[in-house]
């Protein structure tokens, strides 16, 4: 992706955000709206400045993206977070670590089994036994 295209998109997105946010701030009391309004005005001003600069700025550079891999990582992370309340922390975490390692090329059976299990044991000892914290439980246990 071209850096100029990205900056252009960011500037337009921020201008829309500022317009919507400024209007939303109108619903607050005067005190509560003061800093948000100042912040939106500053962001809008800088976005316009960036847009103007993009027109005058010569040259451009490409930001390389491995879209498939990035989307796969984000998808796996999202699935993990969605699964935690359903299956609980332990099952979800073991599944996530296993799936992520496998998806990105780890094939050693011992590694695929020992790393998730070892991580779960470590978290259990530090967070549950030592710090008395309770990881999320599955919905059917709550």
């Amino acid at each position, binding site marked *: 992706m071209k*850096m100029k295209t990205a900056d252009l998109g960011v500037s337009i997105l921020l201008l829309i955000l500022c317009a919507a946010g400024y209007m939303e701030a109108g619903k607050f009391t005067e005190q509560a709206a003061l*800093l948000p309004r100042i912040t939106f005005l500053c962001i809008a001003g800088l976005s316009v400045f960036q847009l103007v600069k993009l027109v005058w700025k010569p040259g451009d550079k490409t930001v390389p993206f491995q879209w498939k891999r990035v989307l796969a990582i984000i998808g796996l992370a999202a699935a993990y977070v969605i699964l935690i309340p359903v299956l609980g922390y332990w099952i979800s975490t073991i599944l996530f670590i296993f799936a992520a390692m496998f998806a990105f090329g780890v094939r050693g059976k011992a590694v695929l089994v020992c790393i998730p299990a070892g991580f779960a044991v470590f978290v259990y000892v530090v967070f549950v036994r030592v710090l008395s914290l309770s990881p999320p439980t599955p919905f059917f246990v709550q």
Partner: protein
Amino acid sequence: MIEHILSGLAAVATLEHAVFMVIGTIVGILAGAIPGLSSTLAISLLVPVTFVMDPLPALAMLAGIYNGGMYGGSISSTLFNVPGAASAAVTAFDGHPMTLQGRSARALQLGVLSSFVGGTISVVALVLLAAPLAKVVLMFGPAEYFWVAVFGISIVVSLSSEGMVKGLLAGLLGLLAAQVGMDPATAVPRFDFGSVYMSGGFQLTAVLLGMFSIPSAISLLEKKTAAHEELAAEEKEETVRLFSCFRPHWAAYIRSAIIGVVVGIIPAAGGNIASFIAYDTTKKLSKHPETFGKGEPEGIISSEAANNAVTGGSFVPLLTMGIPGSPAAAAIMGAFMVQGLVLGPQLFATNSNLVYGLMWSMLFTNVIMLFAGFYGAKLVRKALAVDKEILAPLIFAFSTIGCYSVRNSMFDVNVMIVFGIIGYFMKRFGYPASAFILGYILSALLESNLLRALSLTGGNPFTALFNSGLSFLMIGLTVISLLTPLITGWLGKRNRDL
């Protein structure tokens, strides 16, 4: 005073104290290194345990956790770009690039030596300057605090390698993100879209892990490279002697430590702000500011010396006025209360052994931390030998449990993932996550003091904000901070043209 100092030394010079100081320091280093945990959490969890202990060993152990925790945060920052604590976020700017260059052991050693120098200078300042410095802090009102926050925000200008506009935009977006939830003066809900979770705002740990650790994990997996090629494929052996790390950068150590002490004394400022200010100052004074963010040793030194110097600084208002200068100092205040000790000037008269014993404990735990960290660096860096296909999922999973554990909230985990995705794209397009975090951290300090100053003067901004010499001093520092990069850039361009 000398006899009190010596009797304090005699009180801590026992095997029992030594054992508790070692335990405290190691627990602190581990708590600091694990994202989501912190020295504050570890101290809070151990305060009830101190009820059954004698006061001085208990406080010695907590001092060890405080010092060790401040340093521990730099380990995961340096190795994995995952700050173990908010105050270590700045360490990642140069620590992680050094790791990528195969200089992780050197980076870790610089981190622990700077932490030691910062911590030691802060203890000396605590002993010598506690009473006079406390009086200066009492002169800070809402207007002065507001200008301290503005000065902090001005630092974002120098944090962006892609230009001032991107740095400022990132800082302002951080400021905006912190405005979600109730406003600090009137508790009016803002930008919460009717959600109970959103009305409480975003938890700092969730935002911090989101902006730093998730983008790092995504970046690790993004490129299809050979195993752990990204992370120090070839670790360069650098034979380093303890004091050879100090001599070439002595000014950065001392200056950053002094900044840390001063910021530590100001209640509510803390190690994260200190490290940002020290980093910015060191960069501006450097002959090679362009090397910062690319593995510059002075970047690590300034951050770590400053955040560990906060430890002693934060004890100044705690011991002299009963006002904690940092969250960890507030947790230690709990230990004093558990022991039935009343903080304030009378403590020096009634329990001088305890006060000076605590100061000695801070000094000794710094020494323990130095040796554990310096000689353990080569051992710790072995974590880099793990393949990135294994490391990245572990960073995700570890960040998740660390984030969840702060307040047992899945909402925080969701926030972390969302900020992680935003942070990844910000990183790729040159909007610095560090500026975002700085804006986020300073938002509460800025807004609450702005509104307080305005309400004290009936809403007149001129009488509210321009009413003291200290305010003008902070304004002057802000102007210098904003103009320095512009002037140095202009001078550099002129020299090149000539």
